[in-house]
Structure formats: C-alpha cells, structure tokens
C-alpha cells in the first residue's frame, strides 16, 4: 500500500512514538529511555532498532553505553513526513489526470 514505507511503519506504533518523544528532550541510553515506560528494556531496544532502520534515530558508542538520539535538526522526521506527503499528492494527481483523460470515469464531459 501507499503507506508501507519504513518510517511510516516505525512511527505508527504508539510505543515508538513515545520513545521518539522522550528522545526529543535529549540523547539517552536504552536504560534511561525505558525508565518509566510500561515496556521492558529489551522491548525498547527492539523499538530503537526499528526506528534506527527507518532513519528516525541514530546511535553512537559512548564507553560501554550506546547513546540514541533523534536527528538534532529534525531532518529524518521531515524526510519521513515528505515521503508520506508526496505519496498522497501523487495519488491525488493520478486520480485527477485519469478522471480528466477518460470522462467516462468521472463527471467531466468536455470532449
């Protein structure tokens, strides 16, 4: 379907949205993110893996810890949003072009 891209799937999950909201405050390690959340730390790790693959968070090693962050400039999220934006726009464009090119499909009667 039109909405099957990775970023959309990643952000459609409410727990992952919660992870993103927590990370929007500052970069954190897994334990900090999981603290206060109703899911286990391994589950949070799994969600972070999905978010990373979708390009919505990045990580770096800091000693023995791995620190996760959302892109500080918001570009990953903006790209994900634009991906959806253009999907929707092109579907609407296709519908209008074909309605006009084949009046039998719509109510446009000019020949």
């Amino acid at each position, binding site marked *: 379907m039109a909405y099957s891209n990775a970023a959309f799937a990643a952000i459609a999950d409410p727990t992952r949205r919660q992870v993103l909201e927590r990370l929007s405050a500052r970069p954190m390690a897994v334990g900090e993110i999981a603290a206060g959340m109703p899911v286990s730390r391994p589950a949070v790790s799994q969600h972070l893996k999905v978010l990373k693959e979708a390009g919505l968070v990045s990580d770096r090693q800091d000693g023995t810890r791995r620190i996760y962050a959302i*892109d500080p400039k918001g*570009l990953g999220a903006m790209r994900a949003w634009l991906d959806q934006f253009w999907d929707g726009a092109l579907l609407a464009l296709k519908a209008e072009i074909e309605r006009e090119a084949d009046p039998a499909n719509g109510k446009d009667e000019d020949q």
Partner: protein
Amino acid sequence: MTSGSGSLAIRPAPVKKSVSVKASPEQAFRVFTERFDAWWPRSHSIGESPLKQAVIESKVGGRWYGKLENGTEAEWGDVLAWEPPRRLLLAWRIGVDWKYDPDLLTEVEVTFTSEVGGATRVELEHRHLERMGEGAEGARAQFDSDGGWGLLLRLFAEIAEQAS
C-alpha cells in the same frame, strides 16, 4: 547540551516517487500545472488558515503558493524550469521550522515520460533535503516545540489511524 551531536546528524536521501497514469504526457503535465488546485490535497498546506486555492504560475520564475481562506498567501517557492510536457522543476523553500525561507533551496523535479500503451510515468524527486538543516540553529528548538516534532507525530498518528 550535546556538543558532539553533529556526528549524529542524519543526511536524508532524496524522496523519490513514481506513478503511472492513463493519459499522455501533455495531459499529465497540463493537469499537474493548470489544474494544480483541482488535485492538490487540502491537507498539504502551511499557514495559520486553511488552504483555499493552490497555484503554480506557468513560467520560469513564477511562484507556487497557496491562497488561504483568511486572504493571506503562503509562499512555497518558485518555478526553476518549465519544459512542457516533459519536465517541471520547482523550488521548495519551506524548512524544518515550517516557515518559508527565500534563502533555502530544495528542489522538486517532476518528469513525464511516455510508456507503452499510451500511459505516462510521472516521476517526482524531492532532493537536497539536507539543506533544510544548514544553519538551522533554531530548528532543534522548533522541533522540540509542539509545532515541530509534536505536529509531525500527530500527523503520522492521523495517517496511521486512517490506514488501519
């Protein structure tokens, strides 16, 4: 503050989309431009008022913008190349702070290519997205606020609910 956050920056790839339409390139180009307002989704707008009319001016240097219901206009950018019926290149000058910035240049290229059977392939590429982050010192604050990340997350949630 995280002074080392530069190493975490994401360099976004271009957004590429493609759709096949049952029409000639001439028809497809004409609908895209002359009938822009007829198909442009009403949700695809920025500004404090709902979108009333979406406009592409049909010449190089022309503007593309939205007329809003409160009588104001929301600038999106301008036409960089006008090559009917094969190619259209638009400047998208809206940054991560959802504001028009005349100094920001990201490009939206749309091409119309004949396919067998009289169809046309419409390909769209939105590129140079990394420029949205250049010099955007305020962008972090914007994305922390409700209009940035909060807005994006709400938009995604809405789409998720519609799709499910």
